């Protein structure tokens, strides 16, 4: 089908995207009740044999796949097969959805009310929904929405109901089950619940994978899950999790269905409900356990304006065309297909690559609001320690410059061109008035919320410098989460710009080496398809040359006169990450003995110290996400080793020499140092 649409190296500006339609508009003009009770007759899969929820469970329990594992487990544990089957049935009971139209109608009614108060509009691309309808008719469908908010899956089902499309069954984390009533409600609206970890539990895995596969193969309903596994707290796409994707691709690979359509869906919020919550979480306030009462406390949320939501249903991606000339399906010919086998290296790398392509497809269709660009400007000004703020007209000029640049790089920017830029800017700022302050025609991040507004003389001593820093960090990380939405647009050019910046010469090869080093270093941080270094480098070169920032010939890379501004901007995009990783390296160099558990609190302390002494500029480095990613990268590169098992379980073994040289290389002190590159 449209595999080439997933990842293409054409001019990103020419990317064709559908128009949006606001679905709340009709809700504001007609009865919600009538809407909730409307006639609902979705198009179904052509090969569907309709079956009830209970029949579905029977099919799972009677499947050869599960039967095999049950026999195996009963032998291992010395239980009777009936007992094990009982266990399996219990697991299934705990897991299974009970999709009911009445509950869906209830949600349709209440969500209409909620959405209308929270959001100005919910925009969806109707052409995408038409494609989806076609896909549902032709093949089993997997819906893969991005995950930024709890709202995501309710929103998905709401939209599908609105357009009379088949309602999905949704893989949800077990933690929702804690919310008694809500958990059951979600179950009845199509959610099925899976434990967060069940590593060694063969039976659980078998029940779970068979349940998903049977629903998918029979075309019972589209299967929906989040490739990223969890909500991204940073608004950057997360490295995709492969477990479920592996499961849903399996029926195709084993020939049980002709094809499967994977539909990436990009959901972007102009303002995230969980904005400050996420920031706190990243700063070390633990995530509150999902509970029904907790949800109701969030009621004050209802009084605020959260702008608009854009939902883009991407081109369905055919698993068949992804696998074409990649996977030799006949590898499954020699073992009965109901016997569970560990996927081969070939399959794993195929699933991994596919997952990256799909996440990139999500990223590419993510609508960016002007505010996202403003966040770039605000954060850069803040990092430059510009205490007075920026004059509005200058601010607008920079935003417009960034608008044009991002468009050239293929960003899906929703900037209303018929409105003067200054108005666009001010209306964006006013939606996020919690994060910015405008005074005397100057704009800056609202960092001094507490201190600034206080009457002199009152007890400021109650707030330690550290607390003040953390308060500022909440605002900054909130703002960062908007900036991050557009990082994928700039990341490749930014890697190139940084490589040029640190390279000692203009030689293309040297710059490529630097690019490759940085790309490798940051591949836990950003979505960079494995093994695509050359393509990424070429894409970055192409974009920078196209916009006139660079001239590239056979050997050399030259910055043009007008290119300096672009390159300075791009370097500054990557700079917080460069410094963050550097400081993590520094920290590890100074540590002697450290366990994985101690890492985050210790590194946070270290960073706070550096921030307070002014040795580190970027407050956003406090994000535990960045710290975790840095550690993962260092482990991947072999600079840190995690000891598994034994008494020292979880202890980190540090390779100081390598950490040192990585820190230097990141700092540009020893550009393209041979030994480091060789390690990579």
């Amino acid at each position: 089908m449209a595999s080439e649409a997933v990842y293409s190296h054409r001019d990103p500006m020419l990317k064709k995207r559908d128009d949006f339609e606001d679905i709340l508009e009709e809700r504001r003009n007609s009865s919600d009740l009538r809407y909730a009770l409307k006639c609902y007759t979705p198009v179904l899969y052509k090969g569907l044999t309709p079956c009830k929820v209970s029949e579905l469970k029977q099919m799972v329990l009677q499947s050869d796949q599960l039967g095999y594992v049950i026999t195996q487990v009963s032998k291992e544990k010395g239980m009777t097969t009936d007992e094990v089957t009982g266990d399996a049935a219990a697991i299934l009971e705990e897991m299974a959805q009970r999709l009911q139209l009445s509950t869906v109608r209830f949600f349709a009614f209440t969500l209409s009310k909620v959405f209308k108060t929270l959001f100005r509009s919910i925009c969806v691309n109707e052409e995408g929904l038409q494609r989806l309808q076609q896909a549902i008719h032709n093949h089993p469908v997997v819906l893969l929405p991005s995950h930024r908010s709890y709202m995501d899956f309710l929103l998905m089902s709401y939209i599908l109901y609105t357009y009379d499309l088949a309602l999905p069954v949704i893989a949800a984390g077990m933690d929702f089950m804690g919310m008694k009533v809500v958990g059951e409600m979600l179950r009845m609206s199509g959610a099925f619940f899976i434990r967060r970890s069940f590593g060694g539990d063969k039976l659980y895995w078998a029940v779970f994978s068979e349940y998903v596969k049977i629903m998918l193969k029979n075309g019972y309903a589209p299967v929906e899950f989040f490739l990223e596994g969890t909500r991204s707290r940073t608004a950057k796409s997360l490295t995709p999790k492969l477990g479920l994707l592996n499961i849903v691709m399996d029926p195709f690979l084993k020939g049980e269905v002709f094809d499967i359509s994977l539909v990436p869906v990009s959901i972007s919020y102009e303002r995230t409900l969980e904005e400050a919550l996420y920031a706190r979480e990243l700063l070390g306030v633990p995530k509150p356990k999902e509970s029904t009462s907790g949800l109701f406390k969030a009621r004050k949320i209802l009084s605020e304006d959260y702008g608009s939501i854009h939902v883009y249903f991407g081109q369905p991606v055919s698993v068949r065309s992804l696998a074409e000339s990649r996977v030799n399906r006949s590898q499954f010919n020699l073992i009965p297909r109901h016997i569970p086998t560990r996927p081969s290296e070939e399959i794993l790398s195929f699933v991994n690559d596919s997952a990256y392509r799909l996440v990139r497809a999500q990223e590419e269709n993510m609508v960016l609001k002007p505010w996202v660009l403003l966040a770039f400007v605000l954060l850069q000004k803040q990092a430059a320690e510009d205490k007075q703020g920026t004059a509005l007209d200058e601010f607008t000029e920079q935003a417009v410059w960034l608008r044009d640049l991002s468009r050239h790089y293929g960003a899906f920017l929703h900037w209303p061109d018929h409105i003067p830029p200054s108005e666009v800017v001010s209306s964006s700022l006013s939606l996020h008035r919690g994060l910015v302050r405008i005074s005397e025609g100057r704009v800056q991040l609202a960092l001094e919320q507490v201190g600034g507004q206080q009457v002199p003389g009152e007890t400021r001593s109650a707030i330690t410098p550290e607390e003040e820093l953390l308060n500022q960090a909440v605002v900054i990380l909130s703002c960062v989460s908007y900036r991050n939405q557009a990082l994928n647009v700039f990341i490749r050019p930014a890697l190139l710009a940084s490589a040029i910046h640190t390279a000692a010469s203009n030689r293309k090869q040297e710059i490529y080496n630097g690019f490759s080093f940085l790309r490798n270093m940051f591949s836990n941080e950003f979505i960079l398809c494995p093994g695509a270094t050359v393509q990424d480098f070429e894409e970055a070169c192409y974009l920078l040359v196209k916009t006139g920032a660079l001239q590239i010939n056979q050997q050399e890379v030259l910055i043009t006169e007008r290119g300096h501004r672009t390159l300075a901007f791009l370097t500054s995009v990557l700079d917080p990450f460069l410094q963050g990783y550097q400081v993590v390296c520094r920290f590890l160099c100074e540590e002697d003995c450290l366990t994985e558990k101690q890492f985050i609190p210790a590194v946070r302390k270290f960073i706070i110290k550096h921030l307070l002494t002014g040795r580190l500029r970027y407050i956003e480095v406090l994000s535990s996400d960045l710290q975790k990613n840095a550690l993962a990268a260092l482990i991947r590169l072999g600079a840190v080793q995690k000891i598994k098992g034994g008494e020292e379980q979880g202890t980190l073994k540090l390779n100081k020499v390598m950490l040192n040289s990585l820190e230097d290389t990141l700092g540009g002190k020893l550009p393209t140092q041979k030994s480091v590159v060789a390690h990579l």
Partner: protein
Amino acid sequence: MCHTFPALTSDRSSRICSLLYKHGSSMASNSSGSDSSDRQRIAQQRLSVIAGHLQRPVEGNSGILAAECKAQGDKLDVSSERRTVPRRRQEIMKWNGWGYSDSKFLYNKKGQAEFTGKRYRLSGMIIPGLREWMESTFGANLQHKTPAAPILNSSAVQPPTLNEAFLKELKSTGIPFSHDAEDRVFRSHGHCLHEIFALREGKIGRVPDLVVWPNCHNDVVKIVELACKHNVCLMPYGGGTSVSSALECPPEETRSIVSLDTSQMNRILWIDEKNLTAHVEAGIVGQDLERLLNESGYCTGHEPDSMEFSSLGGWVATRASGMKKNIYGNIEDLVVHIKMVTPQGVIEKSCQGPRMSTGPDVHHFIMGSEGTLGVVTEVTMKIRPMPEYQKYGSVVFPNFEMGVACLREVARQRCAPASIRLMDNEQFKFGHALKPQVSSIFTSFLDGLKKFYITKFKGFDPNRLCVATLLFEGDREKVLQHEKQVYDIAAKFGGLAAGEDNGQRGYMLTFVIAYLRDLGMDYYVIGESFETSVPWDRVLDICRNVKARIVRECKDKGVQFPPLSTCRVTQTYDAGACVYFYFAFNYRGLSDPVHVYEQVEHAAREEILANGGSLSHHHGVGKLRKEWMRETISSVGMGMLRSVKDYVDPNNIFGNRNLL
């Protein structure tokens, strides 16, 4: 019932006749007592004569002149009259299409489909439903014709490259040969779509330079010796029904290519009733073999769909499979002894023991060797007394899934009838379209009633139901018992007995489908069938996926009309089944239809392999499927085959380049 037929097939009560030709409702009536005992008496007489002949010791292989061998052969022959295949095949067969020249489908002046000739049950009949079926299935139109070149333009045929020294010595042996263009062209092809398509357009590629007609084993020995001596390329030619490009002359071959036509080696040399074997020359075609054995009260029971034209040697060389293998076995089960002439000499076993533990069975180097190692000249085959009773049957299932489940159960219980085949819905409709005009209102009324019963009363969806056709054989009582057993199983899978007539028509389809392709080609429709074998658990998956792949590939390749993509399960085994796919499309609007066709077929084969199907169940590899051999049998397997070839035929005298 069928005594008014021309001399070639005028045998009165032959099995072929009962299977293929027009007769009343009491078909399989050859169980009528007096008739059969009569035949057996004649057979006894003949056999005593043969026994006399056999007392004379047969000489060794070499040293006998061809002329002698012919004389001897004539005496030994069980019955030598009425052979189907003349040397000049083009006298009775189409040079650019399937089968007999007198038999073909056409649209008459009224625009009704009609089958000409007098040979088949369908001959001379109007088939009212065919036109509508063709129009609606393919979007074909009677206005848009693509007629074939009527006669062979001999000037389009390259003049033969003759090896004069070889020719000179060949002449001295007295073995007949020809380098006439028509003879050569006839042997330059099998029946792959691209081969027939090219002929219809009058395009002739590389053809054999010479055709020789050996009369017996010793003639073949002589020819092979001469070919080795003069480095001439030999290509054995049996029935010419290959669908694997096996008969295509390799374009890179620079030597003189000699087509060795075995059709005149067509005698049954002896019948051994004690051991129930018959020793037969390998050039005999299926219908002659059965007819002649029938005269003695026997049969081999080997009935591949091509049995009218395909030859015993060809079956051995391609590992053929017959429709009734459930009772009689496939060719590898039927063969007791094989004699093959190779460049290294003659290979044969020293005894006729029913099973041996003497290392790998050398017969298995021969079976499936596709003419790359030598020429099979004589075969000893198992024979069986002719069955007392035959009965067709059919079962309608609500859907294909149920049908496959039923076949699987039948195989599990090992109670498969002589033949059991399951057609999918499209093929069921196709079969329906081939119903000849019904003569009485009563019959059509009955048909209507049946249809009502199945679709309305039983609630079968006419667009999903499918039908299994059955053929039972044996003594009457057992057949009836067996029939009940199978229908009982079918009932468990929702199957309804749907009458003998439907079953019989299903089998008839097998024989006329090749003729139908010629009709399609007159109206922009091209198509072909191909087959595979697959484990039971994959049958449904492979059917669905291959059919869908064909549809998708056609769309991707720009075919303007939806193709016909259909399948049937034609054989059951303990561990799997044989699946047959039919695929055809209307190629109007395509500049290179054959290329598109080949791409789709290629994709379909890839799909088969990806779904756990085999490269071939019985069509063989030829040159068409060579590219997949290595992945099919592994590199070591290829090496094994290669080393056999290198030893047996180091100079590649048998240079058709099939298989490896």
